[in-house]
C-alpha cells in the first residue's frame, strides 16, 4: 500500500504493523500538515459512516476497530448530528427551489376537486398543506444561512474595492514623490542667478527625502493570510519614520492585538489592547516606527481580536515587502 490516504485509513482502523504505525506517528508529530491530513481523513471516515456510505467491508472494519473506543463513539454521534443538521439545511434549499413548482400541483389538485374525487382530493390538500408548512419553515432556516453567506460575499467585494482604492492612492503618492524628486534634481543642476555667499554653505536640506514613508494595508478578508500580491513599502534613504495604516473590513472586537514581524525573523512591533480609529470610511489602525527598525525584506502584520472572555482570535495576516533605496 503506497497510497498515503490508504496508509492513514489503515492507521485509524488499527491495521498497520507496529513499525509502520511508529513511522506515521513520528511523521505527524514533526509535520503539521500530515497531522491535519490525518485528522481530516478521520472526519471523512466518520461522515461517510454516519451517512451510510462506507462499503460493507470497510464499515465492518470501522465498527470493529474504530468504534471500540467510547471517545470515538462520541465523535461519531457528533458527526451524525452534524450530518442531520446539514441535510436539513440542504432540504430547505431544495424546498425553496421546488416551491416554484408547487403552483402547478395546486392546479392539478383543483381539477381533482372539480372531478368529484373529493375524499382523495381533501387528503391530498391536507398533505400539501403540511408539506408547504414544512417547506416554509425549512426555507426560513435556509434563508438565514444564505443571508450569512451573502453578507460574507458582499463584505469581500467591498474589501476588494477598498484594496483597489488603496492601491490607486499608493500609486498616486509614488508618482508625486517621483515628481518632487525630479523637480528637486532639476533645481540642483540648474545654475542659480544669485551670487554665491562668501560664508561656507550649510549642508543641503534633505527635502527630497520624505521624513515619513507610509503604506496602507487592508485587513485580509477571511481570517487568514492575505495571499494577493504583496504591496511594497519603499523607504528612501534618509527617511526617519515609517507609518503603517491597517484598514479593517469589519470592526468586530472591542480591542485588538497588532504585531509586526519580519517573515522568518523577529517581531519589531507589538501592541496589546489596541483600539482602531474610526471615521466615516471605517476603522483603521495607524502606527509609526523608526525607519531604522524596518530593514528590507518581507513582513507580516498580524491582527488578533480579543473576545469578551479575553481570548485572542486571529483576524487577519497581511504580507508586504519593504524595499530600501
Amino acid at each position, binding site marked *: 500500500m503506497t497510497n498515503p490516504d490508504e496508509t492513514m485509513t489503515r*492507521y*485509524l*482502523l*488499527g*491495521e*498497520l504493523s507496529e513499525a509502520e*504505525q511508529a513511522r506515521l*506517528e*513520528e511523521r505527524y*508529530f*514533526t509535520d*503539521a*500538515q500530515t*497531522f*491535519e491530513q490525518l*485528522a*481530516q481523513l*478521520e*472526519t471523512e471516515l466518520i*461522515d461517510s459512516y454516519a451517512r451510510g456510505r462506507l462499503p460493507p467491508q470497510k464499515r465492518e472494519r*470501522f*465498527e*470493529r*476497530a474504530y*468504534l*471500540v*473506543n*467510547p*471517545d470515538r*463513539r*462520541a465523535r*461519531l*454521534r*457528533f458527526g*451524525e*448530528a*452534524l*450530518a442531520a*443538521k*446539514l*441535510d436539513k439545511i*440542504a432540504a430547505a434549499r431544495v424546498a425553496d427551489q421546488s416551491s416554484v413548482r408547487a403552483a402547478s400541483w395546486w392546479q392539478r389538485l383543483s381539477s381533482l376537486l372539480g372531478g368529484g374525487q373529493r375524499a382523495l382530493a381533501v387528503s391530498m390538500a391536507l398533505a400539501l398543506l403540511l408539506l408547504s408548512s414544512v417547506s416554509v419553515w425549512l426555507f426560513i432556516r435556509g434563508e438565514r*444561512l444564505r443571508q*450569512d453567506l451573502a*453578507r*460574507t*460575499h458582499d463584505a*469581500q467585494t467591498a474589501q476588494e474595492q477598498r484594496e483597489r482604492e488603496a492601491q490607486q492612492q499608493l500609486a498616486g503618492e509614488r508618482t508625486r514623490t517621483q515628481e518632487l524628486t525630479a523637480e528637486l534634481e532639476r533645481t540642483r543642476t540648474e545654475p542659480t542667478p544669485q551670487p554665491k555667499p562668501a560664508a561656507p554653505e550649510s549642508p543641503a536640506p534633505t527635502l527630497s527625502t520624505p521624513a515619513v514613508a507610509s503604506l496602507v494595508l487592508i485587513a*485580509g*478578508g*477571511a*481570517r*487568514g*493570510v*492575505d*495571499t*494577493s500580491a504583496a504591496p511594497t513599502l519603499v523607504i528612501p534613504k534618509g527617511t526617519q519614520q515609517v507609518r503603517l495604516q491597517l484598514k479593517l473590513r469589519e470592526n468586530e472586537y472591542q480591542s485588538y492585538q497588532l*504585531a509586526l514581524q519580519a517573515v522568518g525573523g523577529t*517581531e519589531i512591533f*507589538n501592541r496589546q489592547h489596541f483600539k482602531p480609529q474610526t471615521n466615516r470610511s471605517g476603522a483603521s489602525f495607524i502606527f509609526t516606527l523608526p525607519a531604522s527598525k524596518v530593514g528590507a525584506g518581507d513582513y507580516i502584520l498580524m491582527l488578533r481580536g480579543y473576545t469578551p472572555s479575553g481570548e485572542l482570535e486571529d483576524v487577519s495576516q497581511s504580507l508586504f515587502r519593504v524595499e530600501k533605496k
Partner: protein
Amino acid sequence: MASALTSEAFAKFLACLDADGERAGEKYEDLRRTLIKFFEWRGAPFPEDQTDETFNRIARRLDEGVEIKNVGGYCYEVARRVCLEALKGNDRKRDPLETNYPNTASADATDSALERERRLDCLEHCLNRLPAESRALIVEYYQDEKRDRIERRKALAEALGLRREALANRAQRLRDKLERCVTRCFNEKTAI
C-alpha cells in the same frame, strides 16, 4: 500520574518551543491537539490526562538540564511511553489498534431519541455561537453533495482567497471547536 506542572517549569517548556511567548503559546496548543489525538487514536483511556503527563515529563527533563532539539520527535517518544504505561495500567492485554476486538460498536453507537434531540439542540446552540462567517463555512464545507463536493470546496477556497489545504485545515479546526462545544453542552445537559 505525576504532580502538576509548576509555572516555572511550564515557562521553561514554552521557551523551548519558541523564544517568542505568543508563538510558543500557539505551538503549545498545536502540540496539545496532536497529543490528544495521538492518545485517542491509540485508544488510551484518558487522552487529556495522558497529554498532561507527557508535558510534565518533558518539563521535568528540561528542568534537569536536558537539551531538546527536536521537540516534536522527543514529545512523540515520551508520549509513546506514557501511552504504553496507560494501556498496561488499564489492564489491556492487547494493543488497542489490534483488530481482534469484539464488535461493541453497534450496541453502544446509537443514541436514544432523547440523547439525539439533546445533541441536536446543543449543535444548534453551538452553531449560533459561531461568527456568521464560520457558521457559513462549516455549512458549505461539510454539505453532503458528494458529486460536486470537490468543485464546491475549490470554489469556496477561491472565494475566500485561500489554498485548498488552508481551507481544509480551517474547516477542520472549526469543526473540532464546534465538537468541543457540543460535547460540553451535551455533558452539562445530561448531568442535570
